């Protein structure tokens, strides 16, 4: 990716961050007004964590999506379509059911374990170089299973309030998270992204096929283990704090590969940039929609992402049929 090409998403991202922190404008003026204490509290306690979570969650989903797509040699692999997000949600719900919602560390560990379980199950079901149909069917089965078990755990919830809280969280939201919660998601997610970036070169070599990559000295078994673990840690940590948000991990890598000439591995960092931008923009859009209550961001990404996914499937079908 050229420096100039990277400037566009970087500039848009900076604009989204600025808007995310400053909208509505009146709040910005209040930072220097008479009630500045309250305005600063709003900025630091509400806006900053929300913006940080949008950036880290978007970047994590997209970087994981790019890495998983490169690993499976399939542009339709992504954390949500492969059941990773549902697995993480199940892990977090089960943990919440067993020990309550009060411990973010336990929730994070539960979500990471759930994501890891889902990814390992996917590898076992779909195989190393998954055909699109097998990958999607295996992902669908894992999502369905995780979804059913999540609903079961919710149905057995001790009180209707607990049920409502968990349901609200499951739909995916960045609202009302504290700085501490943002840190709980942000640190593991940032570490996972940085380590995924180090896998760019072997994942690019994998484009030549597993055998060639191995003959070049890349340890494919270790590479697979790293991608699975880092994706589970990044996605799990974010799901534990913000619930399940879909489609960013599918869409961002597709745009990113256009900037890297189709290279799947070196698309990880532009994907992270685009993913952060997409989720920050989606969060701005959610705030702008006048619905009376805030639309869960997961609903918006699904509303926009699902038609894109359908277009992608139709496009692939046309190409195969041609």
């Amino acid at each position: 990716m050229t420096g100039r090409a990277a400037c566009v998403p970087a500039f848009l991202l900076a604009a989204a961050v600025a808007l995310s922190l400053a909208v509505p404008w009146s709040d910005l003026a209040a930072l220097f007004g008479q009630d500045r204490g309250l305005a600063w509290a709003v900025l630091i306690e509400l806006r900053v964590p929300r913006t940080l979570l949008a950036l880290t969650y978007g970047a994590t989903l997209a970087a994981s999506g790019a890495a998983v797509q490169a690993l499976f040699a399939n542009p339709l692999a992504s954390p949500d379509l492969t059941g990773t997000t549902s697995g993480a949600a199940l892990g977090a719900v089960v943990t919440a059911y067993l020990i309550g919602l009060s411990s973010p560390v336990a929730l994070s560990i539960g979500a990471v374990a759930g994501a890891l379980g889902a990814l390992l199950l996917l590898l076992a079901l779909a195989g190393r170089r998954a055909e699109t149909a097998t990958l999607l069917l295996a992902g669908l089965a894992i999502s369905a299973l995780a979804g059913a078990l999540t609903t079961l755990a919710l149905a057995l919830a001790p009180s209707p309030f607990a049920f409502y809280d968990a349901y609200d969280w499951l739909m995916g939201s960045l609202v009302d998270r504290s700085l501490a919660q943002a840190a709980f998601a942000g640190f593991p997610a940032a570490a996972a992204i940085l380590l995924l970036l180090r896998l760019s070169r072997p994942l690019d070599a994998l484009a030549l096929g597993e055998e060639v990559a191995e003959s070049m000295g890349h340890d494919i078994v270790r590479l697979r283990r790293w991608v699975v673990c880092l994706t589970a840690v990044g996605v799990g940590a974010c799901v534990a704090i913000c619930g399940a948000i879909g489609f960013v991990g599918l869409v961002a890598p597709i745009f990113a590969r256009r900037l890297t000439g189709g290279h799947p591995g070196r698309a990880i960092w532009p994907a992270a940039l685009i993913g952060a931008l997409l989720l920050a923009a989606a969060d701005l859009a959610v705030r702008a929609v006048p619905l009376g209550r805030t639309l869960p961001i997961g609903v918006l990404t699904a509303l926009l992402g699902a038609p894109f996914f359908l277009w992608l499937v139709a496009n692939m079908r046309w190409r195969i049929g041609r």
Partner: protein
Amino acid sequence: MIRATDIALAGRLRPLSLELERGALVCLVGPNGSGKTSLLHALAGIGGPAGRVEIDGADVARAPRKQRTRLLSFLPASRDIHWPLAGRDVIALSGASAAQIEAVIDLLDLESLTTRRMDRLSTGERSRILIARALAAEPALLLLDEPTANLDPLWQLRLLDLLRGRTALVAMHDLDAALANADRLIVMNEGRVAADGPPEEVMAGSSIGAVFGIERSNGRWRALGQ
């Protein structure tokens, strides 16, 4: 000198040792499933080290990745690339220098193909790009699985010509091409070496008939017993 000691792959390749002279074009023939690809995999370290492979004294399994691209390269029989990369980008994935990439593009006359996406090329054109990828870093040992498959007659001749003088182990099915071009011929059967030596001697021996169930009469290959 390339020396492979006690290389084996469970169920596919019986333990064997092999020495290859530098600069020799060695053709590897054998029926389907005889272990040609397995031998190439074992030498390339695919599926983990399958014995000790030394190239000019360097142990391939222990060589750092940068050095390894200069020691050996492997061309698989599959010509599929999973991502829509441009031809030049595929060649660049070899780790070769810019000058080496230009040289190999020139050598295989690929200038018009390098900017096109792999998924928009014919199988033969893709083959040439992938062969260029294997040759680009000028490795000491080339392990090529059916490099002439999908190539038109002219490019089959050109390829075998330009392999001469390089150290290459080439799995192929065309016995006549192997006879005409190889410095040495290895016949594989049931995961072991059935014959090994100068091509004329191997072809004159009984192993070709025994392994393939074919014989040469009046300059043509026929199935035994016909």
